[in-house]
């Protein structure tokens, strides 16, 4: 069965700027917003856009990510021959292959894409928080008869030099690309979202490989090569909430924004659901001593303390007398009694013992790692 569009989610990065949060798990598997993981947004966008063939390219600590994604059934991707497929490094008669860059990761998985024989390949990042209809971008791509369409969004001019910036003509055709320019000529930043005509991209990847030319990264190699050859590259402007959660501060502030009742993401909108792999767990239990205000709580939580302007993820226990403020607590964390947590991210399965304090500031958020322990009489502290 022929597939029109295959999506490739590049989820291989370590996300080293997330520090101890990504020591044991890949960045796209980092929890977000109570009962999501970052990759849920890209996967749900695919499902909602009618794309059910999704390759998830991964190579860094993939265990949690793989178990989370499975065959994609949690996002409704496992239908009509579609589904999510985890793509990891492998060896062949030509030797062992780790992925050296975004484009190289796609090159290594040509066989996977060719099986589906698609017209278009959508390249996505696994680490952005946003809702986007890729079908509309595809319609745009088709209407322009583009060879490549790049998702862009306007950023404040003074921030543009932090991004890959697209310079377009009046028809939205991209005429120049500047990677983190000192003097940006445009404020249209690349979102790392590309729609390629697959046969053409395949040709570029294979030709350059056979000629030993470097074609490892979309931003550094593929787009410049496309520009040199005057391929029809168009910019597709996205307007809406979009956030790269690649640092501790951005992950924290994205969660704080997520708390806002009128947040632009509109997470409760059932027309564009964000799906996840929900755990089997109990209801949220608030004891007589619980206090709560402007917060999100998730199934499986047991709350005996006070929660103020925070997100508490699945299966977290918060003991009596503890106060959690302006913080994001990841799943399965155990917070003892009389603990004080403020402006912090508490990692998955972390254990904060009675009386401990985890306090950060807006400019330096406190972070407790995956299964880390704080306070108490544990030998490991």
């Amino acid at each position, binding site marked *: 069965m022929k597939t029109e569009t295959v999506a490739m989610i590049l989820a291989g990065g370590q996300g080293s700027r997330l520090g101890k949060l990504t020591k044991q798990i890949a960045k796209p598997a980092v929890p977000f917003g109570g009962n999501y993981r970052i990759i849920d947004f890209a996967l749900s966008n695919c499902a909602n856009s009618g794309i059910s063939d999704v390759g998830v390219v991964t190579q860094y600590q993939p265990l949690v990510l793989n178990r989370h994604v499975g065959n994609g059934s949690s996002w409704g991707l496992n239908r009509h021959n579609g589904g999510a497929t985890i793509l990891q490094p492998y060896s062949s008669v030509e030797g062992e292959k780790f992925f050296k860059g975004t484009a190289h990761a796609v090159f290594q998985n040509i066989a996977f894409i060719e099986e589906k024989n698609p017209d278009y390949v959508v390249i996505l990042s696994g680490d952005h928080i946003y809702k986007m209809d890729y079908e509309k971008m595809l319609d745009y791509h088709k209407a322009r008869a583009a060879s490549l369409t790049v998702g862009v969004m306007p950023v404040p001019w003074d921030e543009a030099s932090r991004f890959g910036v697209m310079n377009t003509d009046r028809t939205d055709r991209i005429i120049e690309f500047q990677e983190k320019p000192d003097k940006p000529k445009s404020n249209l930043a690349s979102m790392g979202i590309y729609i390629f005509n697959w046969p053409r991209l395949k040709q570029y990847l294979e030709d350059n490989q056979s000629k030993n030319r470097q074609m490892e990264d979309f931003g550094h190699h593929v787009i410049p090569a496309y520009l040199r050859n005057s391929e029809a590259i168009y910019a597709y402007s996205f307007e809406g909430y979009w956030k790269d959660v690649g640092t501790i501060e951005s992950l924290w502030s994205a969660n704080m924004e997520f708390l806002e009742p009128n947040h632009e993401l509109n997470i409760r909108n059932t027309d564009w659901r964000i799906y996840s792999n929900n755990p089997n767990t109990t*209801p949220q239990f608030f004891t007589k001593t619980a206090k709560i205000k402007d917060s999100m709580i998730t199934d499986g939580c047991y709350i005996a303390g006070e929660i103020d302007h925070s997100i508490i993820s699945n299966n977290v226990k918060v003991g009596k007398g503890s106060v959690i403020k302006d913080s994001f607590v990841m799943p399965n964390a155990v917070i003892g009694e009389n603990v004080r947590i403020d402006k912090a991210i508490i990692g998955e399965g972390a254990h904060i013992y009675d009386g401990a304090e985890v306090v950060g500031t807006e400019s330096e958020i406190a972070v407790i790692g995956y299964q880390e322990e704080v306070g108490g009489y544990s030998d490991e502290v």
Partner: protein
Amino acid sequence: MKYKIASILNLVEYEDKLKPLTNRRPVASLPFACRYRLIDFPFSSLYNAQAVSAALFISGSGHSLYDHIRSGSSWGLDSVAGGGVFTHSQVLLKSEANQDYKTGPYYYDDHYKYVSKAKADYVVIMGSSILSNVQLESVLNYHMDKECDVTVVYKKVKRSELRDDTIYTSLRVNGNEEELVEGIDWVASQPDPESVLALNMRMMVINKKLFLDYLFTAREKTQDISVDNLIQYTLDFDNQVSGFEYTGYLKVIEDIKSYYEANMDMLNEDNFNSLFYKSDPVRTRSKNSGPTYYGEDAVVENSQFANDCEIFGSVKNSLFFRKVQLAKGSHVEDSIIMQDAYIEEDVYLKHVILDKHVYVQRGARLEGTAEEPIVVAKDSVVDAEGNIVEG
């Protein structure tokens, strides 16, 4: 596949006193404790004992049940290796055959075919109306240790904890260590409400061969295939019945009051932990959901919530199912609020059960009592004056 078991769920259960909650659903699909339905408890017992298949005998419309169970995958019942959920509707056959279902042509056949085809050494029989979380694995180990033909699960309860006008069955358990069951008694209301009985929980393990033997007798005498009858049959033929004492949380769900109390019991941590004890988790069909948001002025005290709610008012001693919206200035106390309720501002609800998808208009007040909570049927509207308009 440590235990090779076939499982039969008798879901033709007494539902009259649970109306209107049972108007369009069997007892087995009654919503419970924010996230569950009663069928989840026997299903989870089966899951935790690694059962792979179940035969369900239901009455009436199975729609809500089918919708919940689907392929049974949430409880590991969809394996290609001998797995499956096989549903048999009794009322349907009755209407087709135009005769009582017990004498209908398929009732015994359905039991026979399912059990004889299953790769099983034992047959487990359960229902859904006696709410409990029995570790079936322990019962099976016990059954094998005892080398009896039948093991029945019971709990010691005071007669006063049960309905006065219902007749229960209790087991006459041999006092010494053997825990053999010597008889089964029908227990109506008793002069001494403090008297303790070994309540037959209508959950049993029976050796496959004996079960198949019984089917022939049952067909001949057009007897129900029930735990009560199987115990009597086993004893009549001098086979051994052992009793397994369950000591965890139990509630017989047979009327609105017991249903209400069971939910309220969950607000007590001991009961909650007994029923949802983590090493024997209760599984339900997972639905996609997001966190519940509690607003700036929300107050929640001794209450439970499912995901996907938006709470701006105050809540005390209550249970909220998914997707409930509670506006600012409203107060809910001692109540059960099922999925999709929309409660406007300045509402006051106390001792109330809202079935699914009820709309409560601004300013409405409803107050029942713990003995007789007000039940608002599915899809109803409660207007500002507190009048209930059925949907």
